[in-house]
């Protein structure tokens, strides 16, 4: 794969429970786990449902849509490439699938435009042959 510009120290090792997530992200799909027992979703992927404890989980393709639950504007981060990217917005996104909250960069949202409750849509950014990051931007 060509150089994505993401330094190796920011690319996570693909843990077994997260393999499906990253495979989906590389295809441009937001794959998350749903628990048939309690009906809730969660992210990040786990062996068992963090809401009810059931190990009988299923993978679904989420809509990729959500609402901004909260955010901050990072104005100081000593680590490259963030050091050069400041200021940028990082948000907690409540996915439309109940129970799942996602932390992501909002690279296309200007600091002054971030508003709690704004509607967002996932985008996908390959970082290596095995990993793609999920960002969120305005759902326009």
């Amino acid at each position, binding site marked *: 794969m060509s150089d994505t510009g993401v330094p190796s120290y920011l690319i*996570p090792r693909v843990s077994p429970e997260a393999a499906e997530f990253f495979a989906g992200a590389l295809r441009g799909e937001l794959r998350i786990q749903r628990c048939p027992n309690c009906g809730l979703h969660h992210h990040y992927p786990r062996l068992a449902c963090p809401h009810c404890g059931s190990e009988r989980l299923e993978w679904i393709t989420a809509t990729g849509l959500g609402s901004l639950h909260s955010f901050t504007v990072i104005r*100081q981060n000593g*680590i490259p490439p963030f050091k050069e990217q400041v200021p940028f917005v990082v948000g907690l996104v409540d996915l439309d699938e109940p129970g799942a909250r996602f932390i992501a960069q909002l690279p296309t949202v200007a600091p002054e435009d971030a508003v709690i409750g704004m509607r967002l849509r996932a985008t996908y950014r390959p970082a290596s042959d095995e990993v793609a990051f999920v960002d969120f931007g305005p759902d326009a």
Partner: protein
Amino acid sequence: MTRRVCVAGVGLADGPKTPDLSALMLQAQAFGRAAADANMTKQEIDGLASAGYGGMHEVQLAEYLGLTPHWLDSTSCGGSSFEFHLLHAYRAIQAGDVDTVAIVYGNNEFSAAGRSLGTGRAGGGGAAAMPYPMSWELPTGLTLVGAYAMAAQRHMHQYGTTSEQLASISVQTREHAGRNPNAMYRDPITVDDVLGSRLVADPLHKLDCCVVSDGGCAIVLTTEERAKESGRPLVYVRGAAAGMTHHSIQAMPDLTVTAGAVTGPKAFTEAGISPADVDTFQMYDSFTYTVLVCLEDLGFAPKGEGGPFVASGALRLGGALPTNTDGGGLSATHPGMRGLFLMCEAVRQLRGEAGDSQVDGAEIAVAHGSGGWLSTMGTVVFGTEPA
């Protein structure tokens, strides 16, 4: 009947800047001063608790001090580790498993690294070496300050809390630092100074963030009988509780409620007190928001009304709830973790040894530690009388 437990000794290492002292030297200095304060030899101390950043830190410290304790606690859950230590030691002494426990912390955070404001989070190994939960946050560029900032932002959205109200916490804490000759920053500041300092992670400014200092602290916990022999004013542990909600900020169930909402009432119930009985509050002020949300969670202000409460001047000496009377982490001392310093200041207040920052006639003091990213919480109630 369980045994009553008292603090027999407290000790502070040199600070806030000690370029000639290593972390272990700061720990040993604080330990020696706390043991001397308790009129004890080190041989009398049969339990040791400490938290650090490596493995087996309490064992390293025991060896360095020449101790061979039969009771150890290395709970390491961030800045509130020491409230967890106290809870565990309190129960173990009550039960008779151990008689005398020293809780020790020290670090040359400032001299070793300088001020980074919690804004460099990757560490040596990066995401591949990060704990799995944190590996989802790190690639977003979120910082430690940013995690707290997202929680503060949500509180503002839900309750109308303002940056001015958060800033007033820094202002009142700095007033107390002005009375502490060992505080890192002592010159008075205004709300405008805080709002005029640069934003680190919106809505938190530089002066909403704790300092980075060197320092060390130790306390010696023992039975009521042994504490009486020390000849120091008696300070009882009346109640303690600890808990957690999450590791990474994405998993915090409610950004406006911490585990303090459980640990506070639980400790108060054991202590037989209500928030109105508290004469002074020592609160882990990693950031102004940490103070605000925990004031609500412990019941000093109703949920959502922490902003008006702090803006009223309640945290001042002479206010409704004199808080962080030593100048806190915001202005005085924060050598990486601060949970132990809270308990030291609580004890000094109840002994009447808090100098220019003394709360007259203080009988009940509460220390509340926060660790991680509002992750782990511990509440301890001290009193001049047993519960």
